[in-house]
């Protein structure tokens, strides 16, 4: 018997034949393909029972009702809540992305104390007790040394019980420095105060208007309550209403409007007055309304005996279509046609507040637009504008201040304004850096991210460097939280109970209740509870001002009998609210609408824009529905929807008219440095016909340096390029842009 190579060959053939005749290769082939169908690194979502919980979205001031779909305790999807008065089932991209924030990697998971340099992002985890007592100790030292007024708080929202509780804390502690993130409502409130004699947030009955003249308001770009506006737009289309959008850029709103009129940025007030001129000259205004409900239309003699020009004379003398055309760059005939169309409408309505209305803006502009509404009788009527009736939403018991608080609270605030003037947040950095007034010893930041959202980021950071103690109550590791000394992470909106006040511009008083849809995912605390705990830790009169066990108890008390409705329906609408009668509408000295208020004269008062002639272009930041530009940064889903003409890799695109690009020898996609008197940034140019020559635009919401890899270090933060500009009339921030130049990079 001889075993040779051939025997082994034969063995091999036998093995091959046997294997082929066995299930092994075939089953293995099948199983391997099944393995690829169930790769262990591809997640398999767990099945289970589905439930829905209604709540409200507070990611923007829109206040939409949401319905959260859950599967066995985990959230699977956020949808719009049908039957909610604000959004009627609709929902925006940000609202839909909420679960990415809940489960996202930027959540702060536990209280943190800084161990590295500021902004270095090195932390140690501390317990809640430790954090609270440490802060209380610091505050106690300041308070006992008579420096209670040298702390400040910035809140993200103007309304809401948590904000009020925050303010209450400062009051009981003895600080006049409560601020909130500014908005166009601040300016509107002033205009109402002067012209209607009533203070209150504006309510726009947009759904019932038939010609809407928007002076740059991003009605479909997130102005007011975005979903409500989309619904309104659909209603306008179906009712054949006309929307006229006036702004230098073909925004989403302009694109969907029936007419887009490009205007030299910052000259909107002049156009409003020009339209008024035509209305008055051609006798197209609502004479009945003007005669019976207004004052100051004709020239008059003031109590001091001076002759003061009335609205009619002012406008007729100074704002002829030709004059206005020179200012605005709009053809005189177009102004006349615009005025006629506006006047012909049954329910014309003009409104302003640029973009999403996050900048208070020019008071002169708000007044000019408001006057235009008055001219056509669209004030205080269906389809018009009116200040929201001042119903008391929260009922608080008085703070019993001790002597320290009583002294502290009566100081002027940081920016030299009377105590608790919440506006003027943008002036804080300059005030700190100027060294005038008193130093700021501690700053508490709640649900806001000033280091990112405030104009002139560098100056803001310099100012923050001077604040020895910075506490953030953010849910996310945003730019400000990263700069803080102690972070007290807040529950996010899906984990907490909270009231969401009426959204900007909504014409009915409405409150929604945000419910804890999920158990807290991490070791976080409701900011309301944190404040109550802090107060209790401080003891004395401060603790006495916070007698509640927790925030929920506080909310139940201040909401009173509304709470029951809120718990049951999820929202509360003041069913008694109606458009105020004429008496209640105008509380001016004359009891009428005031065209020529004593506090501010109507007219075109341009907001001085920064930069000299070495900056030949005008840079305007803009807001878009696909990017969250405020305290909340873009969740990954939203960033995914951003077009590649806005962001490519990590580069922002600067929108520019092809003509302007050509004269600057730039072509599509070129790398450029955009430079302003405040800073510079590298980006690329995108040529777009839909922007006025000489103007360049950047979206808000990019250029984050904190958060996660899905949004950090992508593009340019427009705020680093612009500076705060004070409105010459109101002193509020009115920076709609800045002069800039582009050079090839």
């Amino acid at each position: 018997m001889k075993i040779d190579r051939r025997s082994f060959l034969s063995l091999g053939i036998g093995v091959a034949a046997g294997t082929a005749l066995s299930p092994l290769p075939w089953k293995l082939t099948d199983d391997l393909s099944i393995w690829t169908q169930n790769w262990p690194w591809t997640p398999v979502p767990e099945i289970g029972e589905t439930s829905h919980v209604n709540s409200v979205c507070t990611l923007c001031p829109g206040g939409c009702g949401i319905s959260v779909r859950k599967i066995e305790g985990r959230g699977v999807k956020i949808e719009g809540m049908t039957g909610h008065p604000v959004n009627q089932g609709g929902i925006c991209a940000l609202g839909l992305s909420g679960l990415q924030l809940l489960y996202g990697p930027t959540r702060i998971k536990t209280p943190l104390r800084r161990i590295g340099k500021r902004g270095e992002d090195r932390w140690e985890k501390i317990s809640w007790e430790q954090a609270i007592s440490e802060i209380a100790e610091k505050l106690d030292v300041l308070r006992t040394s008579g420096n209670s007024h040298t702390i400040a708080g910035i809140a993200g929202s103007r309304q809401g019980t948590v904000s009020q509780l925050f303010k209450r804390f400062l009051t009981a502690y003895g600080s006049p420095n409560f601020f909130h993130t500014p908005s166009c409502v601040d300016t509107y409130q002033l205009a109402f105060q002067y012209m209607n004699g009533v203070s209150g947030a504006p309510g726009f009955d947009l759904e019932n208007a038939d010609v809407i003249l928007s002076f740059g308001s991003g009605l479909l770009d997130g102005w007011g309550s975005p979903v409500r506006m989309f619904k309104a737009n659909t209603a306008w289309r179906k009712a054949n209403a006309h929307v006229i959008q006036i702004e230098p850029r073909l925004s989403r709103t302009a694109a969907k409007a029936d007419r887009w009129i490009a205007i030299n940025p910052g000259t909107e007030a002049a156009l409003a007055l020009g339209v008024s001129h035509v209305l008055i000259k051609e006798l197209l205004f609502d004479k009945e309304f003007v005669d019976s409900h207004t004052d100051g239309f004709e020239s008059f003699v003031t109590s001091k005996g001076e002759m003061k020009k009335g609205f009619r004379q002012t406008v007729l003398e100074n704002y002829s279509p030709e004059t206005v055309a020179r200012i605005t760059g709009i053809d005189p005939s177009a102004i006349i046609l615009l005025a006629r169309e506006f006047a012909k409408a049954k329910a014309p309505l003009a409104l302003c507040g640029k973009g999403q209305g996050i900048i208070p803006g020019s008071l002169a502009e708000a007044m000019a637009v408001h006057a235009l509404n008055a001219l056509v009788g669209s004030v205080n009527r269906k389809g018009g504008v009116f200040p929201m009736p001042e119903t008391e939403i929260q009922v608080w018991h008085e703070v019993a201040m001790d002597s320290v608080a009583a002294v502290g609270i009566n100081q002027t605030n940081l920016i030299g304004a009377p105590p608790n003037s919440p506006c003027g947040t943008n002036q804080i950095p300059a005030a700190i850096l100027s060294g005038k007034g008193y130093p700021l010893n501690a700053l508490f930041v709640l649900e806001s991210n000033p280091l990112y959202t405030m104009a002139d980021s560098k100056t803001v950071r310099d100012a923050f460097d001077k604040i020895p103690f910075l506490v953030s109550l953010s849910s996310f590791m945003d730019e400000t939280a990263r700069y803080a000394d102690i972070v007290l992470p807040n529950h996010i909106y899906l984990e907490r109970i909270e009231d969401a006040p009426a959204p900007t511009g909504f014409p009915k008083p409405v409150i929604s209740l945000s419910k804890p849809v999920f158990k807290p995912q991490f070791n976080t605390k409701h900011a309301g509870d944190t404040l109550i705990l802090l107060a209790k830790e401080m003891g004395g009169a401060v603790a006495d001002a916070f007698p509640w066990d927790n925030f929920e108890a506080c909310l139940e008390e201040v909401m009173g009998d509304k709470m029951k409705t809120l718990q049951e329906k999820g929202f509360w609408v003041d069913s008694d609210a109606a458009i105020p009668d004429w008496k209640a509408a105008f509380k001016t000295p004359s009891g009428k609408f005031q065209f020529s208020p004593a506090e501010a004269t109507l007219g075109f008062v341009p907001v001085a824009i920064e930069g000299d002639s070495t900056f030949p272009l005008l840079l305007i930041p803009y807001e878009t529905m696909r990017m969250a530009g405020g305290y909340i940064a873009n969740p990954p889903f939203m960033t995914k929807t951003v077009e590649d003409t806005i962001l490519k890799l990590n580069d922002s695109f600067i929108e520019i008219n092809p003509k302007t690009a050509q004269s600057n020898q730039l072509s599509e996609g070129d790398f450029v440095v955009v430079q302003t008197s405040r800073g510079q940034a590298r980006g690329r140019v995108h040529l777009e016909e839909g922007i006025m020559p000489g103007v360049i635009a950047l979206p808000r919401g990019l250029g984050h340096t904190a958060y996660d890899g899905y949004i950090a270090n992508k593009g340019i933060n427009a705020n680093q390029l612009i500076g705060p500009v004070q409105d010459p009339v109101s002193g509020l921030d009115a920076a709609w842009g800045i002069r800039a130049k582009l050079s090839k990079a």
Partner: protein
Amino acid sequence: MSELDGKSQTVSEIVVSSAHGQSGKEGGSGGVIVLFFFVGLVASLIVGWVLFPKALYSQKKQPIDFNHTLHNGLVGNGCESCHFFREDGSYSGVPKLAQCIECHEEAQSSDPEEIKFVEQFVKKEIEVPWLVYARQPDCVFFSHAAHVKSANMDCATCHGPIGESEHMKLYQQNRITGYSRNIWGENIVGIKKNTWDRMKMDDCSECHQKQKVLLGSVQTQKEGCFVCHK
């Protein structure tokens, strides 16, 4: 090398003769060759048919040895007493602890399995990690409502007489695919005697074609893919 090339003519002569020589030896080693062939054949058949199926599946015991017969006798509504439909039409599948607690807050008997269940899961409020024999992969959408409510099928048609079992059988899991063995079936070649012996796609479609249900597919003229896939 080149000088070797020169010899090639002569080499070829040798090749032919040696070929003859070798074929002469064939007879002697032929038996060995055949033997080796059969050794290889039989060995690999044993590997393929016996060892491979054993190695392919891991065996796991259920956390609790559940007695279906006992429970079936105690509940009023058959299988649906515990394996019920939710209001939205979805199927609850294996019961959650919350259901079991309705009866088993305390041990009802001295059965060691029940005591183990109460001690280890009910008291500690931990869900029982049941191993589901009929668990289909994630790509499958199976509508119990369609089969039980609309087509009035018996549970046993697909699941077999599991309701009559007193003990839980071993759970076998395919090491490569992670599937329960019940999907492919006990038989390694996939031969089945009963409707419940296998739960592969072909078994679903076999019945669907007999019943002529939802035959909307343009490509296969059978049921559309989305009838059973998600």
